[in-house]
């Protein structure tokens, strides 16, 4: 027996696969956005609205990751975007290998934007690099402004925080400034948009950010 010193993080093989996938998507000019949130934060509703607003300018496809079922993929297809349901086989997150398989099934080589709707969970998806060019998370008002304190890694790994369901702000003790301050402390470069998919408030700023990100990815 010989001893081999590795000093590698446990997920090193996933990190390598993710980087290879990211490079391929960059060459292909497809921006992959990894969308993460709790169950019920409004991921699918936000996607429906975003697709509707941007589908004339960009070719968009969606991968819906779920432990089981295809209800979300069906909703997205109704909006006129291609969608596949990526089953994680019981896992609580998507990794680079699963993302690659879902992308192959989606066959979206010509897409400008592919959105991966990750499993609804604020913990595990933050730990596994999917190969996405941008990580976006949603925190909905009913969940509470203390979530950055409870799930710091999610806020640290995200490029964008969408504070969603702001139409119900009057009914909850959710302080946007406090939430922004907490998130910025964890991740000073995080971009934050307060939105309501229902009323459309704030959606233009988020969609503008997304359009710029798609264009920059192709450059």
């Amino acid at each position, binding site marked *: 027996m010989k001893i081999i010193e590795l000093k590698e993080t*446990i997920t090193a093989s996933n990190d390598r696969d993710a980087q290879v996938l990211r490079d391929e998507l960059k060459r292909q000019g497809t921006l992959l956005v990894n969308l993460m949130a709790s169950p019920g934060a409004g991921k699918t509703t936000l996607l429906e609205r975003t697709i509707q607003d941007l589908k004339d300018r960009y070719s968009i496809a969606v991968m819906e990751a779920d432990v089981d079922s295809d209800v979300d993929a069906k909703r997205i297809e109704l909006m006129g975007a291609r969608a596949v349901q990526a089953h994680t086989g019981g896992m609580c997150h998507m990794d680079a290998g699963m993302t690659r398989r879902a992308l192959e099934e989606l066959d979206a080589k010509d897409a400008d934007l592919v959105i991966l709707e990750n499993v609804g969970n604020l913990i595990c998806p933050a730990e596994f690099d999917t190969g996405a060019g941008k990580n976006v998370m949603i925190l909905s008002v009913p969940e509470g402004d203390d979530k950055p304190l409870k799930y710091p890694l999610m806020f640290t790994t995200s490029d964008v925080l969408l504070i969603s369901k702001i139409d119900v702000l009057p009914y909850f003790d959710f302080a946007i400034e406090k939430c922004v301050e907490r998130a910025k402390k964890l991740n000073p470069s995080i971009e934050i948009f307060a939105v309501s998919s229902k009323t459309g408030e704030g959606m233009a700023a988020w969609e503008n950010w997304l359009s710029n990100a798609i264009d920059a990815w192709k450059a």
Partner: protein
Amino acid sequence: MHEMGIILHLAKTLDETAEEQNLKRIGKVVLQVGEVSGIMTDYFEECWNWFRKRHPKLEDAELVIETIPAFTYCSSCERTYPTVRFGRECPYCHSGETWLVRGNECVIKEIEAESNDPDETRTEIETPPTPEEDGK
């Protein structure tokens, strides 16, 4: 669920290493797991023992987990304190301007393995010294 996902990645990393270094089988895997890494070590070991029996190269691989204590640094008073006991707020000056120095890592430190190459089976690479327990 989370632990099992991590084990699949660990196995993949080990497979790749075995391929690269021409290893026949792996006898021991030493992991360094931070106190606040979020990994439940008991459950992790159980998952590993279930998994390795289904994986020829890893069948005999015993898992050894070294726990790395977690420490947080306070940028207001510039002191370091144990994270698990005091959490995010500095126990000295009660500032919230703190960050984790160590304790969330999950690293494969080393493995013990048998090579396919007969000349190499006797080579012993010296075990690196364990990282000093700083902050104590």
